[in-house]
């Protein structure tokens, strides 16, 4: 079964067409990256997937079909899908572990079932469990933010440029962490929106390239590289550059390779 299926999705904000006839699938245990120029509707696509558009945007008009594990965004099960944002989204008055627990509280699940220490350990923040977000570095905050999504065990994770605000070294460490969590099955299926070709190639099984607005999918690159793609020493696997160049060509030449 597909974790996510989108058929001919068109999104309008008044007279502005943000997305036009977009179709894609994300299978279970697959990471798909969505890459394209600024303003092409990548984030809108993610928000439409979980019903934020049109749920929180009254001017939005949506056509086409979205199914999440066979259900519409409105019918989807609670906690089945989660989202990681560009901003860390941590609540400043809560400690790290209280922030991570937040999703469980909202979903009405047992927040003291022992999952929390495992997640904290997986993201390397055990020693910072009782710290407020302001005491954490940018990378730590983003790791904690990722953990708030992972703790609910979503079957599909939507990631909206989650590491865009981090420095390059921390970003690469985050790629390693995400890949490790994927191999560990803590991240099952994911749709990743990014501006970074390297990030897309490092994490995704397939890279979908989008055109300028109105956003359309103009190409697909299947990444057939072994995992982990960043070695423990922080080096890229052989062939990484060639795949990145293939994606780069799609973006530069508007799908004409």
């Amino acid at each position, binding site marked *: 079964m597909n974790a996510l299926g989108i058929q001919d999705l068109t999104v309008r904000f008044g007279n502005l067409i943000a997305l036009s006839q977009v179709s894609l699938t994300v299978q279970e245990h697959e990471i798909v990256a969505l890459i394209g120029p600024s303003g092409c509707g990548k984030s809108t696509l993610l928000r439409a997937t979980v019903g*934020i558009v049109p749920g929180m945007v009254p001017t939005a008009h949506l056509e086409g079909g979205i199914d999440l594990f066979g259900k519409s965004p409105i019918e989807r099960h609670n906690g089945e899908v989660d989202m990681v944002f560009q901003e860390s989204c941590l*609540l400043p008055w809560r400690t790290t572990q209280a922030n991570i627990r937040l999703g469980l*509280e909202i979903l009405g699940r047992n927040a003291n079932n022992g999952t929390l220490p495992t997640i904290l350990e997986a993201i390397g923040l055990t020693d910072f469990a009782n710290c407020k977000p302001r005491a954490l570095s940018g990378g730590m905050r983003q790791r904690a933010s990722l953990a708030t999504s992972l703790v609910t065990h979503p079957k599909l994770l939507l990631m909206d440029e989650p590491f865009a605000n981090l420095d390059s070294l921390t970003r690469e460490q985050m790629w390693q962490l995400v890949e490790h969590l994927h191999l560990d099955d803590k991240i099952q299926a994911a749709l990743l929106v990014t501006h970074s070709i390297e990030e897309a190639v490092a994490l995704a099984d397939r890279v979908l390239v989008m055109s300028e607005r109105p956003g359309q999918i103009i190409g697909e690159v299947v990444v057939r590289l072994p995992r982990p793609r960043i070695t423990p020493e922080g080096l890229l696997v052989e062939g990484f550059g060639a795949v990145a160049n293939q994606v780069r060509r799609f973006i530069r030449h508007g799908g004409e390779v």
Partner: protein
Amino acid sequence: MKRSQWLVPLVTLTFLLVACEVSLTLARVSTFIFPKPTLIVKALVENWGWIVANLQVTAMEAVVGFALSIVLGITLSTVCLFVPQAENLVVPFAIAIRNVPFVALAPILFMTMGYGPWPKIIIVMIVSFFPIMTNLTAGFASAEVAQKERFFVWRATRWQMFVKLQLPSAIPYFVAGLEIAVSNIIIAAIVGELMGTTKGLGLVIIMAVSQYRFPLLMATVVVTTALSIVTTWLLRQAMRIAFSPWN
């Protein structure tokens, strides 16, 4: 409290009082124009019991009015949050009430409620509810879009969104509103008393002026200032304890 925190203001205050005493004596300024600090202290000591008895009345009016303004401010801003259409009614109404001159309002209050504490309590409430309401309204709207979207993804109920996101986000704004409001409550109670009263620091001021007892007048001013400072300090300490996770 660190020694430097109270020592510097104390030394500065002592220096200013001594300088004031010396300059008023050398310049031979009349007590009717500006009484010397020693005369003010003397008046304060001689009338201490009477001043404290009236201070308790003023403080009670200010605190009750402030408490009611908190209830009113929270109620109105919460109504505006849950019923957005109500904002068009509540905000103009609140601005109108806040801007009615006390001089025009006081006779109505005294005629309907008498010369007891209630007219002053109402005046304190009118003065102080507005910053609480506006700050809280701004605070409710201060949660970041991404945080709201995250709650939407979790399919949080309206109540969960309020209790876990909007209300906690509004706390720093609420505290700021309280601090603005509390700085006016003593003076608002005294202004109310000046328009008609049988008790309170306003009565002390009226009697001191009518009897040309200017050292007593200045002593009352000193007490009023001290009461305002203490009230603000107490509020800050209470907020620091009550909302420690936000510090």
